[in-house]
């Protein structure tokens, strides 16, 4: 039981610039209220702190405070090998983790000069996984936006379909999130034999789930009233603020690096860039919703390609880079291939030395720098890698679209009502793991 004393206990919020802002307002004798939203708030998408200056219901100023989830991933990467970086990059934007490791691996491959030597089967698997990650990320965005507007059913529909993606990821990579499946040189292992059949089995129901969602939302008068004309950010504002991804495509610019600067064989797939010109929250969800269907089209093409090409290597055929260990579920439930362990422990000393060298020391990447940008679910995701010729990155920096796009919060919210703050925030689709890194 809660005693009355505990229930009426007073809590005081300290910290940061809070006192200064409140004092400044008191000095100006304006009837403004400062409201601190977050860092723990169910609709701030993680640990984001918004400081809102309110004049009645109207938001006058929005300040964004970050860093609550800063874990120093970029610094940690400098003390791990090039291959280990994949397991760190995947933890940044944990809603589309496959894409982070993809961008990292593409940048490392460019730096090492091995981009052209990645086996075609690995490239198709990568596209398949990236598009599934895009679907999963957009579903989380749409579902949680629906939930924040009071429609919990929208979240359950979206998460139900996302669950299929996560099951597929688990089947292929062993993990639902934070997969570390892409490695410099290819992917860690081939698809299990049952994977494609399973994916074909759920394909139709996933598309149907998206239709369910659209039918409930896109023509729904309440949804339209909450999103149409809200949080407008036109194209010139997007360019000034460096906004990319669904936000800039909702403003009418078909900026999509999959088409513009194709990587990983995207030029071989048939899909459209989804745009609209409303530049508002509604448009951003429309773009995401249409994009998911285009992704499903790409996924179907990937399945066809994989079935047509048959077996093949999924890792570069370069013993100086390719990870030597084979993975499989052994009788002990662990992931080491029994055959491989037998070879290195019992039959071949050279294999053991090779395995040991590559796993502990890693491979070297020629000194220099490279930048690779991909079309992440959230926008242009650029990875800048610098090597000093050693076995570990000298510097890795992620140009995170969430981080950049979050800068538009005050442009979206100032002058609107407080009820639109969460709507605008959700339309940016920030994931704080990626923002703070």
């Amino acid at each position: 039981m809660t005693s009355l004393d505990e229930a009426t206990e007073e809590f005081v919020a300290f910290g940061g610039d809070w006192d200064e802002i409140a004092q400044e307002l008191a000095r100006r004798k304006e009837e403004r209220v400062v409201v601190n939203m977050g860092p723990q708030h169910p609709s701030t998408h993680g640990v984001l702190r918004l400081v809102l200056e309110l004049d009645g219901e109207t938001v006058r100023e929005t300040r964004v405070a970050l860093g609550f989830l800063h874990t120093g991933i970029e610094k940690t990467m400098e003390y791990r090998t090039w291959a280990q970086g994949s397991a760190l990059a995947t933890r940044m934007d944990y809603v589309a983790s496959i894409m982070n490791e993809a961008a990292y691996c593409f940048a490392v491959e460019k730096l090492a000069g091995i981009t052209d030597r990645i086996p075609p089967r690995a490239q198709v698997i990568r596209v398949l996984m990236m598009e599934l990650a895009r679907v999963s990320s957009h579903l989380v965005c749409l579902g949680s936006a629906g939930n924040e507007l009071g429609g919990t059913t929208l979240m359950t529909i979206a998460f139900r379909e996302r669950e299929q993606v996560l099951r597929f990821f688990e089947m292929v990579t062993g993990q639902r999130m934070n997969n570390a499946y892409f490695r410099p040189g290819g992917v860690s292992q081939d698809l299990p034999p049952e994977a494609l059949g399973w994916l074909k089995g759920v394909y139709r129901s996933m598309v149907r789930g998206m239709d369910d969602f659209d039918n409930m939302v896109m023509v729904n008068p309440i949804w339209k009233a909450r999103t149409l004309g809200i949080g407008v950010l036109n194209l010139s504002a997007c360019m000034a603020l460096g906004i990319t991804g669904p936000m800039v495509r909702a403003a009418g610019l078909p900026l999509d690096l999959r088409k513009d600067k194709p990587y990983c064989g995207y030029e071989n797939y048939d899909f459209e860039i989804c745009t609209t010109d409303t530049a508002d929250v509604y448009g951003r969800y429309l773009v995401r919703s249409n994009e998911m269907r285009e992704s499903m089209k790409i996924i179907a093409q990937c399945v066809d390609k994989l079935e047509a090409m048959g077996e093949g290597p999924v890792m570069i055929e370069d013993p100086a880079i390719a990870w030597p260990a084979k993975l499989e579920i052994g009788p002990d439930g662990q992931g080491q291939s029994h055959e491989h362990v037998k070879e290195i422990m019992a039959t071949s000393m050279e294999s053991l030395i090779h395995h040991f060298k590559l796993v502990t020391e890693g491979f070297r990447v020629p000194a220099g720098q490279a930048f690779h940008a991909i079309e992440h679910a959230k926008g242009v995701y650029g990875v800048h890698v610098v090597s000093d010729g050693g076995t570990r990155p000298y510097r890795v920096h992620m140009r995170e679209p969430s981080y950049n796009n979050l800068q538009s919060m005050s442009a979206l919210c100032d002058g609107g009502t407080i009820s639109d703050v969460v709507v605008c925030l959700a339309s940016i689709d920030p994931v704080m793991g990626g923002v703070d890194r």
Partner: protein
Amino acid sequence: MSAPTDHNAGQDAGPRPSQELTPGPQSGGPEVTEVRHGAFGVHGSGDTSGFGGLTRLAQIPGSSGRPYGGWHDAVVDALVEDLAGEGLTEAIEKVVVDREELTLFIRRQDLVAVARFLRDDQDLRFELSLGVNGVHYPQDRGRELHAVYHLMSVTHDRRIIRLEVTAPDEDPHIPSLFDLYPTQDWHERETYDMFGIVFDGHPDLTRILMPTDWIGHPQRKDYPLGGVDVQFKGASTPPPDQRRSYS
């Protein structure tokens, strides 16, 4: 496993990279940034492996000669012409084309002028800034701090160009591009937070990821990781930045 003293010995003793091997920026060939000896990061102990005699040069691509290839020549020509109109013939310190990427090293006082031409000239039109990133090279005397900018042209085929500006540790000032590209706001704050590069002209250059009262700039190479020794059966493993690493 080696005793902890061995790890420390690897840090202090042995041949260190020498600075006089770094040629000036005008050199055409690759630039040697570091000379590494041995293989295992241990120096000063008896060499029983034979790997102690191994010498490796870390070489980064030096300045490139014409033609740069692809669209790079046209972009450099247009920029040089614009700069000459303003009398800024020395603004571009060096042009490096490597891995099909164009890097322009810009004199720091001319950064804003260069970026303005890159954004506004109709032949260049790099409208979209992809932010700034710092890199710390403690061995690059007088040019320790590098700020690296990536700009994308939406008009011209989504070309990406890289600008690199250097500043010495003693005077870590670089002009801000906030007025040209408002998106630089948080990116410059992050680079300030992580490297201590002061972007002159930024309206509110405060920390963004680290707490406001944090001391030091964590992404600098001289920033200690502050890890805790891991003890096991009397031996201890030092934090990652003090461990022996492959040279």
